């Protein structure tokens, strides 16, 4: 059973209505309803197999739901376009283009009509924004994983999308780099005139609680929403105090996962006993 959030006052940007999605014969998402409104920073939190990535791909337009509707500002999403920028865990930058080359491609899309030199100059500005000044002529493989992910974030902002979809963007980074990049992301997001709508997929509870206004907890097999929890901590947030401030919420989410795991285990045991299929 999904928990329906109260309709927020701000305009809805991304919406999923009764979405179900099969990948092959596997039901990945079942009966999902979700509304993300303007300027919200939403964390999608779930274990592997909860369909987080599929959910993001549906919103990006890289996959189609089996049933139900995915809309962006009321218009059905029928394919990928630049109004929804997606940041992958890797593959965000083309290895054969320099950092400026990669960013200039995104700048060229958000600001058509710019000359080559202006695009390059803007690309350099975006690199500076994410703390990578002077790396414009480098190739992605010459930079560390953390620096590459900075580049990926810069590209997402350079694309000028209204909504940002981030698929475990910091999943492959070491904890210290991860902290630096979380703060960088919040800094750019908060400093942006007209905050972007952000959907952030993660399996890290701390990360979800530190970054977001709202945590959507996903259960697995099939993926569905277990809870939709608003977070009202003021920003900028205090990383030190966060564990105390969110203790109740943390306990609630942990209990949700524990119950979901137990349900899944009983289900699979039952299925084996009956000799029934999936």
């Amino acid at each position, binding site marked *: 059973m999904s928990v329906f959030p109260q309709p927020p006052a701000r305009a809805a940007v991304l919406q999923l209505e009764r979405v179900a999605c099969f990948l092959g014969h596997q039901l990945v998402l079942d009966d999902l309803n979700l509304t993300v409104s303007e300027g919200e920073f939403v964390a999608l939190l779930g274990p592997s197999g909860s369909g987080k990535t599929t959910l993001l791909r549906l919103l990006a337009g890289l996959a189609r739901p089996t049933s139900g509707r995915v809309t962006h500002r009321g218009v059905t999403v029928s394919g*990928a376009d630049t109004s929804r920028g997606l940041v992958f865990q890797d593959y965000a930058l083309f*290895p054969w*283009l320099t950092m400026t080359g990669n960013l200039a*491609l995104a700048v060229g*899309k958000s600001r058509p009509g710019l000359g080559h030199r202006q695009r390059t100059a803007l690309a350099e500005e975006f690199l500076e924004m994410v703390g990578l000044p002077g790396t414009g002529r480098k190739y992605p*493989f010459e930079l560390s994983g953390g620096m590459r992910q900075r580049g990926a974030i810069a590209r997402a902002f350079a694309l000028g999308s209204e909504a940002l979809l981030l698929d475990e963007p910091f999943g492959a980074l070491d904890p210290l780099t991860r902290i630096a990049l979380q703060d960088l992301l919040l800094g750019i997001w908060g400093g942006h005139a007209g905050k972007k709508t952000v959907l952030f997929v993660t399996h890290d509870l701390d990360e979800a609680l530190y970054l977001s206004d709202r945590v959507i907890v996903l259960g697995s097999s099939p993926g569905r929403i277990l809870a939709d929890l608003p977070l009202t901590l003021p920003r900028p947030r205090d990383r030190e105090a966060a564990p105390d401030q969110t203790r109740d919420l943390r306990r609630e989410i942990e209990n949700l996962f524990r119950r979901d795991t137990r349900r899944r285990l009983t289900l699979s045991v039952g299925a084996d006993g009956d000799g029934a299929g999936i």
Partner: protein
Amino acid sequence: MFAQRRGDTEFVLTEKTPRLRVSARDFAWLKKLARGREGWLFILSVLLAWQILAVSLSGTARGYLLPTLTVTLAELWKALPELLRGTWASALILVPGYALAVAAGVAWGLLVGTTGWLWRAFVPFARAASPVPGTVYIPYAIAVLPTFKLSSIFLIFIGAFWPVFLNAAAGANTVAAGHRENAKILGLTKFQYLRLVALPAALPHIFNGMGVGLVLTFILLTVAEAFAVHSGLGYFIQTYADYANYPKMVAGILYVGLVTSLCMGALDRLRRRVIFWEKKV
């Protein structure tokens, strides 16, 4: 083995065990010396075997077919001016034919590899047409094209085109899903996708196709020059084979082998320069 025979396992573990067998370690210095020179060593041993075989056959009828290495090298030295002129003549056919084949193969291959209906329409035909030996087209080429030289360029073109095309199409068709989705997110146009994603992603395949095409080109050179231009490396080999001048023929083969190997080496170096991100990603 030694220990088992003695029935005393501890004997083998003591330091004073006499080493009766020759172990691989005894040749470590040889291995170290050979490292990095294996290719030359192999060629050297082939040449040595050739010389031994040729010397042992000399004076017999079969020995006539296999001139000794020393005789061949002497012939090679004598024929060098002729061979150098032949290289130039061959290049005049080879370079335009090969360059055209690479350009057309890459362009058409990328387009076919990234366009669903073109792939379905053209690739089955290409699979049927590509194994047809280029020599089959000679009479038609001569009939249609205005000069013999153009016909032989066309023959080279056909030989190199198919491997380049098939590899370029396969490479463009199998671009990693991550890159493809990345391009979709960026909203790249078809032309941008071809130039900025499909081409670089397919380059490793394209270079493989270019290597195969280059070898085929040298094979076809013999035929292409025989009917059209009456000069060049292929013509040199074919003529002396027809006159049963085997020392000269073998000298020609050695020379062409050297040229081919130099070309392949150059292609390899070009590949490392162009695909600079390969093995780093």
